């Protein structure tokens, strides 16, 4: 796969950072549900938190392939750290940069791009998961303010976000055309953030619940027009899917790295277990799946960079990469035998982390729905 010099450089830089700074913390932050604040601060210093945002707005001015590779390399050692970056950029920083007005961009993007705080996207609700159109949070216009009431769950970066994009119903009874998107600041009155439930994986990633009780949002914080929220978040998710595809890809690659190393070192029956055909063939299958996933993820990124439609390709990428990540991480555990079930050997964490990827930002079932609907129209 041909990469530009800049893209190759980013891989090298992030890989080095990941091995030196991120991996040493990975087991602990997962075990104790710790958010890696210092790591995020370092990522900010490196410009990663605004990697695909133009320098004019405080970013590093790199392309979406560089961003994809950065997420992949982080995911390769720590799913939680990769997810933190992916949600910050794809679900908040980039959507404001891409879809908001100039005033809104100037006001909100630089702080996010420079990593003064993180960004988060409040879409999901207790009754609006796959059925995102089932949003129940409401925003009622009162003069030059929208008053927000409702709640959101499973919001990545919630407790460390200074800026949120929140979806809410501005007009009831007309379905998705009645949903609007708002930029909401953390210190808005009536806005509370609670820590989320303990998780199966991605335990170093912060997630929480958002509660809005008569929270006043300035009218100028509406993104686009009323009723354009659903379309905007669909476009947001298209980009987000590439990032989750990249994350899953990285997790799968990291699991393969570890399985390969172990298979070469572990001796049973007087030879390295990689000499056993069953193990060798597992590794071959794992590698093939990863390469295929990489092609799908990078293809989606390339199309986005080129300004081509990429919804179908981002669905392919997210669906395929997350599913193979589950298969690959499970085999990585299997190759490690009993050790694979213990915390010290990492691979069990990779498997738990990968499981988020078939669910978050559109379940595999939703991806198949998107793909099938697109195919049906062809």
């Amino acid at each position, binding site marked *: 796969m041909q990469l530009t010099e800049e893209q190759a450089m980013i891989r090298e830089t992030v890989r080095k950072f990941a091995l030196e700074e991120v991996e040493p913390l990975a087991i602990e932050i997962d075990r104790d549900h710790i958010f890696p604040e210092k790591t995020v601060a370092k990522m900010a210093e490196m410009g990663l938190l605004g990697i695909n945002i133009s320098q004019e707005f405080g970013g590093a001015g790199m392309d979406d392939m560089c961003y994809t590779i950065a997420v992949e390399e982080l995911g390769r050692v720590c799913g939680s750290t990769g997810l933190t970056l992916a949600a910050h950029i794809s679900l908040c920083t980039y959507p404001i940069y891409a879809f908001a007005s100039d005033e809104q961009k100037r006001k909100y993007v630089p702080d996010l791009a420079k990593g003064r705080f993180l960004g988060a996207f409040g879409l999901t609700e207790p009754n609006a998961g796959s059925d995102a159109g089932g949003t129940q949070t409401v925003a009622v216009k009162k003069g030059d303010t929208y008053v927000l009431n409702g709640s959101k769950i499973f919001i990545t970066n919630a407790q460390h976000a200074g800026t949120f994009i929140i979806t809410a119903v501005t007009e009831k009874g007309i379905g998705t055309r009645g949903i609007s998107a708002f930029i909401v600041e953390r210190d808005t009155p009536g806005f509370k953030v609670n820590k989320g439930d303990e998780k199966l994986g991605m335990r170093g990633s912060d997630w929480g619940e958002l509660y809005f009780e008569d929270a006043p949002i300035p009218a100028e914080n509406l993104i686009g027009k009323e009723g354009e929220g659903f379309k905007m978040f669909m476009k947001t998710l298209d980009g987000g899917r590439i990032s989750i595809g990249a994350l899953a890809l990285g997790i799968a690659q990291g699991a393969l790295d570890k399985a390969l190393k172990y298979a070469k070192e572990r001796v049973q029956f007087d030879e390295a277990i990689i000499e056993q055909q069953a193990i060798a063939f597992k590794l071959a299958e794992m590698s093939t799946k990863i390469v295929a996933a990489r092609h799908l993820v990078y293809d989606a990124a390339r199309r986005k960079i080129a300004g081509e439609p990429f919804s179908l390709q981002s669905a392919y990428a997210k669906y395929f990469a997350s599913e193979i990540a589950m298969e690959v991480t499970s085999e990585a555990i299997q190759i490690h*035998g*009993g050790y*694979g079930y*213990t915390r010290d050997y990492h691979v069990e964490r990779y498997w738990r982390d990968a499981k*988020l990827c078939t*669910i978050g930002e559109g379940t595999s*079932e939703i991806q198949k729905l998107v793909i099938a609907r697109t195919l049906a129209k062809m």
Partner: protein
Amino acid sequence: MRFELSEELMLLQETVKSFTTAEVAPKAAERDRKGEFPHDILKAASDLGFLGMTIPEKYGGVEMGNLALSLLIEEISRADASLGVTLSVHNSLIGSTLTHHGTDEQKEKYLPRVASGELLGAYALTESNAGTDAANLGLKAEKKGDHYVLNGSKLFITNGLEAGLFIVFARTSQEDKKSRGVTCFLVEPSYSGFSIGTEEEKMGIRATSTVELLFDECPVPAENILGEVGKGFRIAMWALDGGRIGVGSQALGIAQACLDASLKYAKEREQFNRPIAAFQAIQWKLAEMATEIEAARLLIRKAAWLRDKGLDCTSFACMAKMKASEVCVNAADEAVQIHGGAGYTKEFPVERYFRDSRITKIYEGTSEAVRMVLARRLLS
């Protein structure tokens, strides 16, 4: 050919279900979170005969056999896979093995206390260099007068922290064929030089202990040799047949729990103005899960039936373990998927089933090891 269970076994199933609902299920999630061993539940379980399922009545057991044991493990594991494996190891690897291979003196000395649960059993075969290649074990047993002195270590021993009786496999001689020269010993943790080493931090089955055993000049009386000197490996393999049926039963229980949870959630959870059970994608997952579980169940029941009849059950034990564990891991994965984001939290039990499920493809013979054994038999 009869598919239905006997009345006695159906009654046992009901008894176990009631016990599980009342005593095991309520705090299973909490025990997992805290990594807490259920001492109090074991006491109640022993009163019902659950710790002596394959031990003769004359030694205080209930002598119900392997199919009964399988039903017990399956039902317990539905609520708590940790307790499932604790009971499986205790009954099939220790209780059955001692019953089948012990001398009258050994049986009188230990079986009553095993059956009552006073002595929890643990099985020590695995070492850091002897996993699938079990014959590569290196724990040394050197004869010194009327004792054998053990030096070395064992790894990943279930029930290790709580056990009062260990069945330990050690090398009494170096032979060309490594499986020869292995002897089976009954070891009490009070013997000098015996200690517990590292305790593993596991992804799942966190309410059981999985530990390293350390032997430092540990003297074991010669009368504690099970079977004959140098013929221990045969005992290990015999025991593993039962152990595989046990782990298969545990896997089956976890899988059933996954199906139960998924059915419940699919009917209750509404999206797009209808229960998600209305969607074909979800329906298909449930139908496939149910089919795979039934297939695994039949293999396990047949393996257990063969063992009860004293017939060769090795191939079926391998098939049963292979199938049930693979079904289990898939079922747990689909169960989390069906629950969506909520399945990723501790609000629902499925994330625990997911973590618990994964070990079933590894211990008591990896999916690869059982394929090796099975293929060898098919080809011979």
